[in-house]
């Protein structure tokens, strides 16, 4: 499975917010714990809505939580 071009700082932010568990975050965002785990590990790119909800839980801007590492302007990202 090629890695996704989107990285995130969710794990770091969870620990900075009182060692919040994946389950706590999942409940506040409205997804399953497995989905939070998949996002954290970079296995799944969330929808824009879920990305905003995650950022809102941490009181952070979207770009503080997620960043795009892929090529820009070349259409779909190429798998390595």
């Amino acid at each position, binding site marked *: *499975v090629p890695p996704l071009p989107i990285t995130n700082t969710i794990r770091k932010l969870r620990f900075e917010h009182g060692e919040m568990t994946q389950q706590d975050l999942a409940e506040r965002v409205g997804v399953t714990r497995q989905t939070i*785990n998949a996002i954290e590990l970079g296995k799944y790119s969330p929808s824009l809505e879920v990305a905003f909800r995650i950022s809102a839980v941490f009181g952070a801007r979207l770009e503080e939580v997620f960043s795009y590492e892929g090529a820009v302007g070349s259409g779909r990202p190429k798998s390595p």
Partner: protein
Amino acid sequence: MSFREKCAWISFVLTLLLVAGVALGGHLGTAGLHYFLTLLIGFVLLQVVLRVIIARQAPKEARTPKDEREQLIDLKAARIGFYSLVAGVLLAMFAVHLHGNPWSGLHTMVFAVLIAWAIKLGAEIVYYRRGR
């Protein structure tokens, strides 16, 4: 393992058992139909019982509706299952054409549905394992 992945495993294993049961039962005829219906009822009852057992282990998770990742997995797996079903139905049409026996077409069709369902569940399990 999540509640939905466990459900997929249960359905997958039971569907494979149903396929084996249908294969061992020979061709569907009037008598074979009763055998198939008995298998089908057993399949549904076992599914219900096993799902109730795992839902009791994780009641909160069982009540939660599917989130976007699970819905996506469901859709991707259903697409794979659909192509398998189409291939199976075409095969069933061939079977009727070759044997001139509608029962053999029905038999192949039942197999096509069950195998397509097993493929859909198998794909779901693979996607759950991969995370997407």
